[in-house]
């Protein structure tokens, strides 16, 4: 628990901890790298290039970047038109605006048309303390029912860099939840390679299975390490692709006799927990699964460490929860 008095910096500062290994603006750099190889890649933003790391691309390739202004419907419409003409647009804004405000445009101009538009959106779930206006706690719930949309919730900078070329290669629309600024580098320690549509075991364990996505995978790995001291053997299955969801791997891992939890930086409604439950029930493998995620409510404003504890998604709270269930 964090007892220290926190300033407003803690509302929106980097999610990286002091001293943690990080990579700066992984989305922006990965996009520049991709664009150097693929001349069709273009970038757009709705007045949030600087806050979604797309400014790195904008500054490196100004003639391939379009500033659309604070107009998210126009952003997605323009991205659709560019894709229709054969380009590969990456469009950035905050997750809340892309999903709540511009849903109709994403659905009809992009997804129904099957266009290769890649939405790269910052501030997923609880990654800002600004309150419900900026916290995309239900973006996955909104988007999972959209046909033909690929949805990715990467864990860290390493994965974001691998996701960028893979979503560009999808011949259809994609939505990626972006972590911005100094983003932790975690998964390179686990010999991880992102494969679209595949969940991957980062560590095996006999007692507990944690199925996680996004930044919760980092916390799952930390929790697993802490629980080693208590001789609790924890497996972590990272499922960053929410759609198409890797049912096969989830079913295989859940079939083993272990305590099962899902961990997500999203409402417990409509995200990873629901995707997991859906697969289990549909395949006749229904069993108890404990959701760790944000509550079905509008979250408080405040400092992130405080809120992470309050809503049970900090590493400490995950460890406590697992212990309480054993």
């Amino acid at each position, binding site marked *: 628990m964090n007892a220290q008095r926190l300033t407003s910096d803690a509302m929106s500062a980097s999610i990286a901890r002091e001293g943690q290994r990080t990579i700066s603006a992984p989305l922006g750099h990965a996009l520049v790298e991709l664009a150097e190889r693929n001349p069709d890649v273009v970038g757009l933003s709705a007045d949030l290039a600087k806050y979604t790391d797309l400014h790195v691309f904008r500054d490196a390739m100004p003639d391939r970047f*379009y500033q659309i202004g604070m107009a998210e419907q126009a952003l997605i419409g323009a991205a659709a*038109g*560019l894709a229709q003409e054969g380009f590969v647009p990456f469009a950035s804004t905050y997750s809340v605006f892309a999903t709540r405000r511009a849903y*109709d445009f994403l659905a*009809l101009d992009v997804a129904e048309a099957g266009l290769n538009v890649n939405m790269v959106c910052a501030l997923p779930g609880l990654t800002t303390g600004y309150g419900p206006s900026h916290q995309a706690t239900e973006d996955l719930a909104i988007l999972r029912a959209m046909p033909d949309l690929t949805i990715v919730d990467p864990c860290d900078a390493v994965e974001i860099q691998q996701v960028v070329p893979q979503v560009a290669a999808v011949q259809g629309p994609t939505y990626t939840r972006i972590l911005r600024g100094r983003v932790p580098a975690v998964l390179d320690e686990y010999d991880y390679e992102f494969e679209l549509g595949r969940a991957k075991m980062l560590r095996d364990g006999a007692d507990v299975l944690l199925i996680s996505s996004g930044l919760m995978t980092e916390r799952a790995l930390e929790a697993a390490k802490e629980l080693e001291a208590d001789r609790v053997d924890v497996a972590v299955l990272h499922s960053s692709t929410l759609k198409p969801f890797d049912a096969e791997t989830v079913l295989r891992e859940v079939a083993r006799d272990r305590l099962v939890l899902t961990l997500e930086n999203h409402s417990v409604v409509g995200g990873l927990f629901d995707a997991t439950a859906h697969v289990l029930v549909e395949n006749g493998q229904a069993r108890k699964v404990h959701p760790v995620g944000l509550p079905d409510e509008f979250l408080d404003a405040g400092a992130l460490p405080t809120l992470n504890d309050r809503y049970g998604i900090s590493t400490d709270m995950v460890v406590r929860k697992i212990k309480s269930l054993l």
Partner: protein
Amino acid sequence: MQTRNASPRIDEERLTRIRDFARGVRTSSLIQAEVQGQGYIGQALDLSDIMAVLYGDQLAYDPADPAWEDRDRCLMSMGHYALVLYAALAEAGILPKDELKTYAGDDSRLPMSAMASYTPGVEISGGSLGHGLAVANGVALGLRRKSSEAFVYNLLSDGELDEGSTWEAAAVAAHHRLDRLIAIVDFNNQQADGKSQHMLGTEPVDAKFEAFGWTARRVDGNDVEAVLNALIELRNEESERPRVLIADTKLGKGVSFLEQREKLHFMKVSDEEWDRAHDELREGHTA
């Protein structure tokens, strides 16, 4: 193949050709509506003259290759006007005329609301109003990246001026100096619940577009010569501004009893009336 006709010369032969095309569009629209016994026939008839100027004169396209890279793009936002678009595509030779009778039927390539994924020559999926201009911006940006000579036309209804997204898109078009984008507003003053200007006052529409940084013209949208003249002027204008034609049209234009009927968004027409409508179109043309 129809090439881009940049000539400003308007003679009787050119006008006659376009008027013949318009009669064909009206007849083909009636054929489709008749199968259903009802529909957006009022709108189809009011837009027929504009569609004839576009597909019969202004647009570059290749009937044998609807996706021809150098074609002008004509994006219809108001998907429910589909039947007049299919009619124009049929008159242009992009769709077979025989197919018009499948309009809005099961498994038809011609759904009630036009969608790019269903129909050759249909550029976008319209229907959710206020989208077309936003997509047209992206198409225009893409064509500019390719150094294309093609123009982008966006057909929108006056009702779509109620949507904030139309005005967002208008600002974006001007900001990016999309001078090969020509919007055409079908101002028939009719929406689902009544007269457009009773639903939400959007006038003065031309002044609003001008204030957004566009060049605007306003003409009688059922006067073929005026529409042609305006579209040629807008295309040839030397400026970096996007362009818009506000076309005042008459719902049901060309069929007298439909013009005079109580104005409705979605019209029902009786069996005998279809014959009368066809007769009027034939007579109107020879008169």
